């Protein structure tokens, strides 16, 4: 059996990579992709704990997370398209209209 801690370690590494990508990248789409990486890291952790506890609720939660990710992708990409139409750029620096 693979130690479940390996899965948790991989999940942690994935999450950190997602956070790093979110801060490093400039364009909105890649930042959004980084959020997806973080969501998947959370999914991996959920499934690991579901296996550890032997209780399926963790897998159902992952199912819901994927649903929410789909909805989020649809809305987020629509917003990115809107930003691109208005500013002709998808750089994150351009969208500072609400900056105080």
């Amino acid at each position: 059996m693979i130690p479940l801690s390996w899965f948790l370690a991989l999940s942690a590494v994935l999450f950190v990579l997602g956070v790093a990508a979110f801060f490093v990248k400039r364009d909105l789409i890649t930042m959004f992709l980084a959020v997806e990486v973080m969501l998947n890291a959370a999914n991996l952790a959920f499934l690991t704990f579901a296996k550890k506890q032997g209780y399926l609720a963790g897998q159902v939660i992952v199912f819901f997370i994927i649903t929410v990710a789909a909805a989020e992708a649809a809305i987020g990409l629509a917003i990115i398209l809107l930003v691109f139409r208005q500013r002709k750029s998808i750089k994150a620096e351009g969208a500072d209209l609400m900056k105080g």
Partner: protein
Amino acid sequence: MSPTSYLAALPRAPGSLYQKHHISQSFSHGSISNRVIRVEGWHGGDAYISPGAIDALALHPYNGTNKMAVTLFLVLATIIIGSVLAMILSRDPAISALWLVLAFAALGGLFGLLEAPFIAAVQIIIYAGAIMVLFIFVIMMIPRGEAFPPDKRKITLFLSIFLAAVLAAEMFVSLWAVLRGDRTAGPSGLGSTSAVGRLLFRDYLYPFEISSLLIIAALVGSIVLSKKRGKE
């Protein structure tokens, strides 16, 4: 079928009760005498095995293929981390998204290792399929800086031929296995489709229905957002 694999093939929903006659073998972390299982903290009665105890007793279905599972984990983890790093390092969002498709597909393999075959299929079909295609769609709608430089085109040609060959080989191998008749039974472990479905449509029915509302809201929202403002 050996007793071990018989026990491993039993449904392992939480609270499931295993009859004494199911168990007729001794294990390393517990002992079975006179067809009574003795696990830590268990006293008499029918043998009740919690899923955790099944892991402790090394009754896991993957137990026989331990080395293979570890190898698979290491390979998949390497692919995942490598492709996420490649996603971070690549400048083109389209290339980033393609690397991420690879990462999510490999992650689906890991989900399979975690006894979640249904979620693994959902991950590959919906995440690596639908959601990432949506990303690539939007990326293609936004004009990008530069296309492939011409010297790279030969590499992409070879790569696409190679990938097509691998895909064809894979399909033929699976087809051959099915036609030869050594198909395996559907997954019967922790996260079998029927178990997940039962939980989803029984205990989590309301969240499930509410999530359909969420999808509708997202659908309407994205249509309204991306609609071109014409004459008002």
